[in-house]
Structures are given as C-alpha cells and as structure tokens.
C-alpha cells in the first residue's frame, strides 16, 4: 500500500496535558452530575465551568508563551496507528471562545432557573447541565482532533448532546424540530464516515498532518472529500441544507439556543476549513472553495431576507445565524490570495476567524437577550413587543450592541471581520463577493433596526412586564455583547496568534 511516514509526525510538547484536561474536565463534570443529581448538579456544573475556563486560558497562555502549537500523542502511540491532539492558534482561539460562551450561558441558565425555584432541581434543569458539559467536551474534541475518525466520533458526540438540548421543554414542535435536526445530522455523519473509510482505504492513515503531506491524492481523495464536505454542510446548515436550523434553534430554551447557534454549528464549519485547507490537493481546494463561496453567498442573501420576514424574534435570530455562517464560506476563494502566500497569512483568513468568534459572542448575546424578553413578556412576537426597551433597557442594549457586530458597524469585531473580507474581495478581484458582503450588511441592518425600532417605540399603553427580571440575568447578555464589540479593539494581536503552529504544515496553495 502507500508508504507510511517513519519519522514521528507529532512530537508531544510539555503543555500537552492541558489538551487532555480540556477534553476530560467536562466529561468528569457530566459523570459527577449523574452521580450527585439532582441536588448538586448546578454546583458541579458551575465548578466544572470555572475549571474549564481556567484550562482554556492556560492553553492560550502556553501557546503565546512558547509560540508553537501544543501537541499530545495519546498513549505515546504515533500516528498512523495512534491518534494525536493538537492545538494551533486557531484551535486555541476557538477553545477560548467556547469556554467564554459556555460559562456565560451557564451563569445565565442559573439565573433563569432561579426564577422558578420549584423546578430548579427538576429533571429538565439537571439534564440541561449534563448536556451543556457534554457539548463542551465534544466541541473541544473537534477543535483539537488530528485524526479523521476521532473527529467523526467527536461530531457524533456533539450531535447526541445538541439534539436533546433542542427538545428540553418536551413540546411537540420542539420534538419535531429535534428529530429533523437529528435526521440531517445523521445523514451528514454517515456521509462523513464513508469518506473516512475511502481515505483510509487509499492512504492507510487518517492523520490530517500526514495526509496534508501526501500531495496529489487522485480520484479517491476527491470523492472522499466531496462526501465528507457534503455531510458536514448538512450539519453546518449552509443554504440549501439549512431547513432544520430555524425551528430547532428557535424552539430550544434560550440558554440552549445560545450554545447551539453560537458554538455547535461552528464545529462542522471548522472541520470543512481543515479539510479544504489542510487535506485537499490545491486544484480540488480551489474548486471546492468556489463552490462553497457560491453557497455561502446564497446563504447570506436568502436567509437575510428570510430573517427580515420573520414575525418572531427567536426565528429571526435563527435565520440570521444561517446568513452569518455564509460569511465563513466566502473566505475560501479569498484566502487563496496572491501566489505563494499560504492561506493563513492572508487578511481573509484573519477576517474569517474574527467573523467566527465575533458571531459566536454576538449571537449568544442576542439569544440570551431574546430569552429574557420572552421570559418577561411571555411571548416573542416582534409586533407585540413595542417599547420593550423601557422595561428591559439592558437587554435592548445587549441586542443593539450584538446587532452592531452582525451588521459590521464600527467599532465592533464584526466590523473588522467584514472590513477585512471586503478588502480581500476587492484586492483579489471578486466583485460579486464584495457586493454580497455589502448587501448582507445592509440586510442585517434591516432586521436589527426592526427590533431596535420596536424596542424604542412608545406605544399608547406601556408594555407590562409579566414577571420581574433580575438585573444579573440581563447583565450576562450585555457582557457577551460588549465582548463582541471589544473584539474590534484588539485587531493586531490575533494576526500572530492565528499563525501559530500553521507554518509546519505543507501548504495547500497552488505552486
């Protein structure tokens, strides 16, 4: 068969144990919740979150200190037989983002559960904590995995944790939404698995780093990658395959929606990024990039218009998620850049990553704010919320600040991201993509202003709050929104961070 690499491809680094902690701490939390449920579930979950956040910060600090990727070779077995975990700059940034959003969501969920003390230790609450931690562990596994089959298992774990989050409240509509999500996700995983089998059959290895050095892989690799990317697109809810996302994300409880929309769909997007940039041979990568950009652009335009037409706040935010995900796919042709420049040194790469992170923070803030609004007034029909800004000023502010980032108005992380993407589109001569980015920004402005306009309206009869909302609950959403805006003020630091650990890879750029 094909030659297997003899020299070790992965060299374990001293900080590698941190990666293992990032995977295992949330799992230990889940087990402890099962053991101590229902009394201690909250304490265990919040303690796990504090520990997980510390680990994420430690990974980031270690990466910045050493200036090189962290690697852990599981059991000391080198690939192709063993599997490796590896955190480069991008993975570390995503792990930090995940830890931040999960912790904020956890605080929010605690506040939300305190509103109804009778169900605080109930089954739904306990299940939520276990699923939240399971989602976290699966996300970290996706971001750290180097082995394609290991990534398959991580994706499935993510699905099994995310699908029940959709139907936590047990109503018939959310059950149907969860089942539709599961059907799309299962089809996606099986296509991915078939691709994994074909790659193993052709090359005898599944390690991304070894595969990236193989050069031209022939038709087997192209077919396998096409299957895997198609499967991942179903999970990432890009335009023609997005039908499952709006009902699923809008029907879930607010805290779960925030995690699903901000984080869970980023995992398949991240894998597509790795497959296209690291594994695919240059010509195939260029072709796939064009195709993905077309789908991404359609996603931006179609789903932004759909978001404008929604009558319910949470459905509008869910459609906005599909539109914003589209920006991540137009990065591919832009990142191929000038001759000889690896993708991760282009401004489009930085812009895409910044878009990913700022969308996560902004979208989590929006869903939490919408959850507060729905909790306070008992419904989330936009037409019936006139003047909610007076009753819940902090939530309206959080929504507005998060909206700034989605629209791409300075100063915000979303502005820097879209500005970089736009510049890359103009420099590389993609006028249609540039026009799409601008149109997407305008449409986002349309749907955000529709809500802000409602919030600031002064109806004849002021809106009455059905139940008092503690200030702390609103602060969580506001903190996330402010973080999304603040991303716009640290533009230079991530450039270097995102390149850490990339240079060792064989480039996927056309010679």
């Amino acid at each position, binding site marked *: 068969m094909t030659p297997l690499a003899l020299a070790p491809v992965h060299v374990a680094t001293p900080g590698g144990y941190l990666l293992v902690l990032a995977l295992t701490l949330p799992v230990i939390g889940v087990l402890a919740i099962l053991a101590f449920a229902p009394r201690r579930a909250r304490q265990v979950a919040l303690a796990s979150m504090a520990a997980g956040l510390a680990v994420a910060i430690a990974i980031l600090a270690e990466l910045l200190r050493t200036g090189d990727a962290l690697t852990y070779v599981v059991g000391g077995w080198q690939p192709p037989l063993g599997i490796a975990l590896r955190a480069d700059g991008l993975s570390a940034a995503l792990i930090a983002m995940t830890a931040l959003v999960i912790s904020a969501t956890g605080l929010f969920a605690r506040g939300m559960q305190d509103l109804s003390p009778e169900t605080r230790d109930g089954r739904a609450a306990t299940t939520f904590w276990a699923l939240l931690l399971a989602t976290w562990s699966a996300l970290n596994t996706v971001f750290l995995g180097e082995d394609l089959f290991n990534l*398959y298992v991580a994706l499935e774990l993510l699905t099994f944790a995310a*699908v029940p989050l959709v139907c936590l409240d047990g109503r018939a509509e959310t*059950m149907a939404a969860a*089942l539709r999500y*599961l059907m799309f996700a*299962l089809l996606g995983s099986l296509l991915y698995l078939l691709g994994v089998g074909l790659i193993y059959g052709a090359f005898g290895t599944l390690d991304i780093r070894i595969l990236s050095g193989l050069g031209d892989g022939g038709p087997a690799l192209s077919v396998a990658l096409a299957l895997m990317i198609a499967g991942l697109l179903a999970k990432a809810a890009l335009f023609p395959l997005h039908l499952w996302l709006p009902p699923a994300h809008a029907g879930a409880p607010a805290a779960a929606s925030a995690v699903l929309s901000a984080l869970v769909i980023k995992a398949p997007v991240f894998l597509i990024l790795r497959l296209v940039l690291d594994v695919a041979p240059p010509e195939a990568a260029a072709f796939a990039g064009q195709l993905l950009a077309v789908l991404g652009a359609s996603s931006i335009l179609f789903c932004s218009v759909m978001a404008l037409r929604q009558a319910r706040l949470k459905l509008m935010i869910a459609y906005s998620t599909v539109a914003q995900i589209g920006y991540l796919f137009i990065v591919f042709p832009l990142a191929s850049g000038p001759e000889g420049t690896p993708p991760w040194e282009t401004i489009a790469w930085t812009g895409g990553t910044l878009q990913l992170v700022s969308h996560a923070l902004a979208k989590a803030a929006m869903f939490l704010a919408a959850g507060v609004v729905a909790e306070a007034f*008992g419904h989330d029909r936009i037409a019936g919320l006139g003047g909610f800004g007076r009753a819940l000023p902090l939530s309206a502010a959080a929504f507005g600040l998060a909206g700034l980032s989605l629209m791409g108005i300075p100063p915000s992380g979303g502005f820097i991201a879209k500005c970089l993407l736009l510049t890359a589109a103009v420099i590389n001569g993609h006028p249609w993509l540039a026009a799409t980015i601008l149109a997407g920004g305008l449409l986002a402005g349309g749907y955000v202003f529709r809500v802000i306009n409602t919030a600031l309206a002064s109806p004849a009869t002021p809106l009455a709050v059905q139940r008092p909302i503690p200030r702390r609950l609103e602060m969580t959403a506001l903190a996330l929104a402010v973080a999304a805006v603040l991303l716009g003020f640290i533009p230079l630091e991530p450039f270097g961070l995102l390149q850490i650990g990339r240079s060792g890879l064989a480039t996927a750029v056309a010679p």
Partner: protein
Amino acid sequence: MSSAISDTATLFGLCGAALAGIGLFVVIAHPGLLRRLVGFNILGAGIFMVFGAVARRGAAAGLPGDPVPQAMVITGIVVAFSASALAVALLRRLFDLTGRESLEPPAAGETPRAES
C-alpha cells in the same frame, strides 16, 4: 496481494456500496421517520462493509486483516446504536404527543406559540 483476496474484497466492497445506496434511497424517499431510521441503519451497515473491504485489502503480510478499520467498525456500531436509540426515543415521544410519525407539516391553523 493476490488477485483472489482482491476479488473477494472487491465483491465485499461492492455489496457495501449497494447497501449504502439502498439505505440512502430509503432515507431520502420515505417520509415516515421509522422507515428513515431503518434506512440509516442500512446505510450504516453498507458503510461498515466498505470498512471491512478496506481492512481485507490493507492486510499486512501474515495478518488476515488490517485491525484498524475493524476497530473503527466496532466504534461505529456503538455510535450507530446510540443514534438509533436516541432517534427512537424522540420518535416515541413525538408519537405520544401528536400521533404522527412523520415530519410532514401539521395541519394548517396551528399558530406558532411563544417561547417561555
């Protein structure tokens, strides 16, 4: 590798491909969720057979088969089992609540309810 082994493995792989095709057809063409679930299992079985063929073809000298794909199949079966269990649990709950076992849109007139 000898041609005999290669032929058996090819036959095995083709059977896997046929099963995967049947499974995919069932998943896409049938609205009933229980049938789709069976379709997913057929599709999964086909994919596992492809893995089996890969293991046979990749066998090192002296070994009857490459153990790595076999280990993957075992993991895959566990994952597929969990997926089926989760889907059946959700489906039973949906059936208890609505009496439907498909995702066809509910009858017109059902207004969207607010979240709480």
